[in-house]
């Protein structure tokens, strides 16, 4: 099942992806590549299917058409145990943090290590403290999730996502609802972790400035299609009206300010 990737530097290859929820088309024949060791951003307006894309890459959803190959393995042809083996090499930072509320910070980070390894508690303790040190929350190890701020919860979730030293981390809207300091911390952490550990990072976000500051490559999605792609510099100078509207946050343009409706005066 492993596909030959010696010619392909991509860790994730998506080809002709189509996916629908009921009558609503989320992806329509979309193709993209996530390069090894790079930070790739998937951007687009709310509801454009960015989070769905992460779930498809993680094998939580199955596409109606097309292929998703991760580390040479076609996600949709994997058995449950093969998929779980692959997921051990993936980390995911959920928008809400998704921390287990009945465990404290230390146990949340230790959870995947305890589940998947037979390491003694002394080594688990050392590993967890190292991960918490990396996100600056070693001192918060005894707190429970409800005692954490939103930014701290995401940092704990990040420590948990890298607990098993994955090859790839997927970030779902990491900057949403963060104050400037927390946002700055998260930006620095994502960049540092990616560069120092040699991770491959996929950031799903609609925070243009923050994401563009650290991304190596950006895909912009709308209506189920990739409507722009390139480095942040290339996109900044893109001639596409759509890309310009999104990158500069213009209220009107190809994406209309008004939701589709009948004539205003006829409606009054």
């Amino acid at each position, binding site marked *: 099942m492993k596909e030959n990737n010696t010619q392909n530097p991509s860790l994730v290859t998506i080809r002709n992806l189509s996916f629908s929820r009921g009558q609503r088309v989320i992806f329509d024949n979309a193709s993209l590549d996530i390069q090894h060791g790079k930070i790739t951003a998937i951007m687009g307006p709310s509801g454009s299917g960015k989070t769905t894309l992460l*779930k498809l890459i*993680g094998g*939580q959803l199955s596409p109606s058409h097309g292929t998703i190959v991760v580390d040479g393995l076609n996600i949709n042809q994997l058995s449950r145990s093969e998929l*779980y*083996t692959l*997921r*051990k090499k*993936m*980390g*995911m930072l*959920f*928008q*809400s943090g*998704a*921390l*287990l*509320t009945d465990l404290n910070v230390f146990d949340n980070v230790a*959870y*995947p290590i305890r*589940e*998947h390894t037979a390491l003694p508690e002394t080594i688990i303790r050392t590993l967890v403290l190292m991960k918490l040190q990396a996100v600056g929350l070693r001192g918060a190890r005894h707190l429970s999730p409800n005692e954490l701020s939103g930014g701290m919860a995401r940092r704990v*979730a990040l420590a*948990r996502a890298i607990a098993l030293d994955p090859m790839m981390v997927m970030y779902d809207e990491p900057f949403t609802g963060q104050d400037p300091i927390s946002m700055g911390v998260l930006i620095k952490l994502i960049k540092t972790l990616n560069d120092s550990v040699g991770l491959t990072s996929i950031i799903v976000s609609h925070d243009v400035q923050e994401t563009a500051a650290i991304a190596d490559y950006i895909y912009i999605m709308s209506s189920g299609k990739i409507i722009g792609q390139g480095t942040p510099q290339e996109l900044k100078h893109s001639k596409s009206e759509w890309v310009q509207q999104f990158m500069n946050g213009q209220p009107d343009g190809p994406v209309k300010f008004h939701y589709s409706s009948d004539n205003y005066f006829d409606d009054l």
Partner: protein
Amino acid sequence: MTYSHLGQNLKMITFLSAIGQSVIANLTKTGRGTLFLKQTLSCTFSVLCHPRLIIKQLFSVGVLTILIITISGLFVGMVLGLQGYYILSDFGAEETLGVMIAASLVRELGPVVSALLFAGRAGSSLTAEIGLMKATEQLSGMEMMAVDPIQRIICPRFLAGCLSMPLLAAIFSMVGILGGQLVGVTLLGVDEGAFWSQMQSSIDFYDDILNGVIKSLVFGFVVTWISLFEGYDAIPTSEGVSRATTRTVVYSSFAILGMDFILTALMFGDI
């Protein structure tokens, strides 16, 4: 054909379509529930190898329900003692009060009332817990950590529910009999020796007690299944979890009462 006829036909088609959609939706949900149960049962062996997971859930599902079961059992037994005494004394048969109380509790009221209380206390709590775990992406998070939530979250709770229910029903019946004794013997003066000896000689281990245990096992299985599935299948919003919790109590109550009739007919009836 006139416009009014067209309108009537359209209404009829819409009505039939709504019924059809509702039937399909319910059948689909039943199918999802059955697959969910199959997945849960398939994890049983591996969860039994980690008894710590079950013990933790036995506490929250079973131990925390003991108080409501005990208090309810006491009052039900006291009411049975009171009502039974007034009816039996008309026939001069007060001494059979112990038999009446024990048979009512062990055969019917113990399993049924404790299951209804279990659905209201533990079942609703299970649905809300699982539904909120889904809404806060904890279940998705576990899946992405390559941890099966059915195995780690659902199955231990399911086993704890199935194990707790017969024990809770037994506690309910025991406390109920003590409540009946308190009213019948201590307050109303029924002979204590007759109360206990008639009960001892009339209540059969297989026909009464074992059938009651089987009933409570079935109720525990059904209530825990409904509770966990409703939580797992809930729409991940606050309204969705709230509706799922309500459905758990309603469906469980119907299931308990319906199953009770079927089981009673099979065990004691000539149907």
